[in-house]
């Protein structure tokens, strides 16, 4: 090792605290890059493999009922590579030992194993056998949650009849990577499952001989990106059979959530490291400027002895390179393990046959490279000024800084009221412009990360509140198999423990406004409905008008409608007529694209007196009543789905809130690293620069705590300014994120309570105080006499 390297090593050892602070910022930046990048690659690769393995459909068309023989022309459409039809129904599930009825989706599969579109991957047991008709393959997660195994019997209500089915296997499928039941916002494997039954058995129990109600298809590769045209033609061909909805892969719920997550990861992989590495580069710049300044004479001497500019530059660069390489390495390791953690979390959210955390050499190398690059960039600027000096100049002490009055001093009435301590603090802040700028920027980024993180949490809490406390207020929601009359309501009202029952009616339809069309549905409610209450933007309840629609803002945007406009509504079931209907109110909400109307009005639209397709219940929540109600419901065959608000909220709390706590923890730690690292750096550099000045104060009788208080005031001011500036940035980040995640299924609210900002400030101050502890320790240990005697 050359002597200069020895010098470097000693330089580094004497400022290890600072190195650690900066390295940790870089480490976090690189770790984020590697972690998000790995998670992105893990999910993308798993998705690609899985979709290929299951022959994931490029589109699906849901219909009322179509003879399979009529599907041949669709298969022959140019651009359609293959089709398959299946029978798909919702069903309730009764399990031994589970008090409430559960929900599920029943799908048909060929009796004999053959590769099909939207195939399954068996996880345990086997495929259907010839031994019995009533065999079922259960989706793996539901089976595991309820400890179901091949050989068990379960009960499904199929076509109003309770059927006993024999479990032959458990499986997963690429269509249900993210399995959401109707009305759910997160997967709930405890209460929602997928059940595959034999094609012939399905035709039999649903009276669907030679018919199907869902068409799945593959497209020619060149059409996958823009399937619109071909799907329109297919839909037109099939329209006599009552097309409910045509769903290209991009709109398929599971795919959409998964793709959104993947896109989000890619954005985070760029965005978060950029924040951290920019801060790191700035902080490093401050440190190296100081280091080079401090070693001015050494630089001059080395040059005088005959070291070339590049040699001297490389000497300082090594300092930065060491930080860059160390930060890069630690970041890669930490990133790899973070990705592994994320992978575990994703295995809980997404259901893949296999989701592994891989080591991506390219990604790690890039992470390393970025880290080194950031360190180099951060150091070039800082050292250049000193390095370009001629040796003779460098060896002379730096000319005294222009110690002119800072702007504030001209505000006489203000300045004269300040104590000398405050004056020193303010002068120091204003004069070391670069350091202050770096500190403000770092604090701003730290605060932005905190605010954005807290706002995410608030958004989730608000959304759950909005959805499950304000809009959906029923304890239990029943979806009926078929439309019924008013008698169904009376029947439901008589169930044990029911305090209030309100009817609902769901009508599938197409909304048309000029060139804009959209398939969807209208929910009929009574005009005095209390169990589903749409709300407007200001969170005020909206009364259901006796005529016309209350439309969700998202759908209104898609259709380019505003309050007072009219829209064409074409019903799909029943008399397929078209009506012109006014949009009376716009409702806000974060899930789906609901449209509400008065149930009587809606019934008349579809040509009936009063139709009921669901009932909402407010119940007595006493355990014994609930148990009785569940027992009764389990016995009712006419139900398609039963949803319990309490269960939904519980499952949200269990998964979402748990994830959220981890998320908060990470955000706070990451932001803390930024705050801590930059504050520590600024204070220690300032301390080193002003050793003489502060030593003089010591001689004048200042104690270490008083000196410390000068430093603390300085860092608090810088931190607070940065934090306040960072808050709107955090807010804007959240707005950007909300835009990015804005979809028909899901939008997330931009809400920020004072708590978000108060917490951010409190944390910023806390980080500043913790960093100051280290600074204070340094102050206590300083040898003032030596500082005074040493020549600058």
């Amino acid at each position: 090792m050359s002597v200069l390297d020895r010098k470097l090593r000693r330089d580094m050892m004497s400022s290890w605290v600072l190195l650690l602070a900066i390295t940790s910022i870089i480490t976090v930046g690189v770790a984020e890059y590697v972690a998000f990048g790995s998670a992105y690659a893990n999910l993308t690769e798993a998705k690609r493999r899985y979709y290929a393995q299951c022959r994931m459909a490029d589109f699906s068309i849901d219909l009322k009922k179509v003879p399979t023989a009529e599907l041949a022309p669709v298969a022959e459409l140019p651009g359609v590579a293959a089709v398959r039809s299946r029978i798909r129904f919702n069903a309730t599930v009764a399990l031994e030992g589970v008090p409430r009825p559960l929900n599920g989706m029943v799908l048909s599969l060929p009796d004999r194993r053959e590769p099909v579109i939207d195939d399954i991957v068996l996880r345990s047991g086997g495929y259907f056998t010839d031994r019995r008709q009533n065999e079922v393959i259960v989706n793996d997660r539901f089976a595991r949650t309820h400890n179901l195994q091949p050989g068990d019997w379960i009960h499904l209500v199929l076509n109003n009849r309770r059927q006993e089915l024999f479990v032959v296997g458990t499986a997963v499928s690429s269509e249900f990577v993210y399995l959401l039941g109707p009305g759910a916002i997160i997967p709930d494997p405890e209460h929602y499952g997928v059940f595959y039954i034999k094609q012939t058995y399905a035709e039999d129990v649903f009276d669907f001989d030679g018919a199907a109600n869902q068409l799945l298809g593959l497209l020619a590769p060149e059409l996958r990106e823009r399937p619109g045209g071909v799907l329109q033609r297919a839909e037109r061909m099939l329209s006599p059979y009552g097309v409910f909805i045509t769903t290209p892969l991009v709109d398929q719920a599971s795919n959409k959530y998964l793709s959104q997550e993947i896109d989000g990861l890619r954005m985070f992989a760029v965005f978060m490291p950029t924040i951290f590495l920019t801060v790191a580069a700035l902080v490093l710049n401050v440190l190296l400027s100081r280091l080079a300044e401090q070693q001015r004479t050494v630089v001059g001497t080395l040059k005088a002895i005959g070291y070339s500019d590049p040699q001297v530059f490389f000497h300082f660069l090594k300092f930065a390179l060491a930080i860059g390489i160390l930060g890069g390495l630690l970041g890669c390791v930490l990133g790899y393990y973070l990705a592994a953690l994320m992978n575990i979390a994703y295995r809980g959210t997404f259901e893949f046959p296999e989701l592994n955390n891989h080591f991506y050499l390219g990604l790690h190398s890039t992470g390393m490279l970025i880290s080194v690059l950031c360190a180099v960039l951060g150091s070039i600027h800082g050292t250049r000024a000193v390095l370009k000096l001629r040796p003779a100049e460098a060896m002379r002490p730096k000319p005294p800084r222009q110690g002119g009055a800072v702007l504030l001093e001209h505000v006489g009435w203000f300045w004269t009221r300040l104590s000398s301590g405050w004056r020193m603090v303010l002068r120091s802040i204003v004069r070391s412009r670069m350091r202050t700028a770096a500190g403000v920027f770092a604090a701003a980024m730290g605060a932005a990360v905190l605010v954005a993180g807290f706002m995410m949490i608030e958004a989730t809490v608000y959304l759950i509140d909005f959805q499950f406390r304000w809009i959906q207020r029923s304890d239990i929601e029943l979806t009926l198999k078929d439309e019924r009359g008013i008698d169904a309501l009376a029947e439901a009202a008589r169930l044990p423990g029911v305090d209030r029952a309100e009817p609902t009616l769901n009508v599938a339809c197409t909304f048309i406004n000029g060139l804009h069309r959209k398939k969807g549905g209208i929910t009929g409610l009574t005009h005095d409905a209390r169990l589903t209450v749409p709300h407007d933007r200001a969170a005020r309840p909206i009364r259901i008008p006796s005529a016309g629609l209350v439309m969700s803002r998202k759908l209104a945007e898609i259709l380019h409608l505003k309050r007072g406009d009219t829209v064409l509504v074409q019903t799909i079931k029943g008399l397929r007529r078209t009506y012109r209907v006014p949009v009376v109110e716009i409702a806000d909400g974060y899930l789906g694209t609901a449209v509400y109307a008065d149930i009587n009005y809606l019934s008349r639209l579809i040509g009936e007196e009063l139709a009921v397709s669901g009932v909402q219940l407010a119940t007595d929540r006493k355990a014994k009543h609930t148990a009785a109600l569940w027992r009764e419901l389990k016995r009712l065959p006419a139900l398609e789905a039963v949803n319990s608000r309490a269960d939904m909220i519980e499952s949200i709390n269990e998964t979402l809130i748990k994830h959220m706590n981890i998320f908060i923890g990470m955000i706070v730690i990451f932001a803390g690293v930024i705050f801590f690292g930059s504050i520590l750096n600024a204070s220690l550099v300032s301390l080193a620069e002003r050793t003489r000045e502060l030593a003089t104060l010591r001689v004048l009788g200042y104690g270490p705590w008083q000196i410390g208080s000068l430093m603390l005031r300085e860092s608090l001011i810088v931190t607070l300014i940065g934090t306040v500036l960072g808050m709107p940035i955090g807010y804007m980040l959240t707005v950007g994120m909300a835009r990015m995640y804005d979809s028909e299924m899901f939008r997330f609210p931009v809400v920020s309570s004072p708590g978000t900002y108060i917490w951010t400030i409190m944390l910023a101050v806390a980080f500043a105080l913790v960093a100051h502890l280290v600074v204070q320790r340094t102050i206590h240990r300083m040898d003032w006499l030596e500082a005074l005697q040493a020549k600058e």
Partner: protein
Amino acid sequence: MIETIVNADHVLLRLEHVDKVFQMGQLAVKALSDVSLTIRQGEFLVMTGPSGSGKSTILNIVGGLDSVTAGEVWFRQRRMTAFTSSELTRYRRDTVGFIFQFYNLVPNLSAEENVMVSTELSSDPMDVVEALQLVGLDERRHHFPSQLSGGEQQRVAIARALAKNPALLLCDEPTGALDFSTGKRVLRMLVDLNRQLGKTIVLITHNSAIAPIADRVVRLRSGQVVEIHDNPEPVPPEEITW
């Protein structure tokens, strides 16, 4: 004033009508004005003059540490004022040994390591311990500058300059911070280097008592050469006193 031209082969360095102006904001400080001077191969040259007269400035220019504002500097047959920065670096590395007025040791390197800083650069270095022996500090070679007295530090700086075996030694007040006897020892060393190894030596001092040991004495005042005095019979350092 123009000196008598000596045999060009013996001229190591030549300054011709050199001006040096320091710009400090609005203020221009003229440190050198119209300085012409020859440094001969193998001579022991002493520069004296009051503080601020431009001694260090000349030494910096001669050592390739600073540029001139006007005029020319020649190193042997080559025009130094036209040197690129890498030529300057090469010149400093291969030809010059600098002993600074304020020692300029690297604080977190030991005495020995400070000497190595220059030997590592040189193609034909002296042994580090030998160099330290020359200045009588081989015993202290593991000590850091902060553990050495001013004089000892100066001796390390001398060892550092010697160790890379330069043809030209530039010494800025090497004895300024030393006591009488140590100062004399340093001077003896320099004289030996000059007489025995043929090193060209330029030594700055404001102490005119030292002047008699030189072959020639240059006197500066206010940035100008006011006198060049040949000294056919230099006095050994032991015989001078101050």
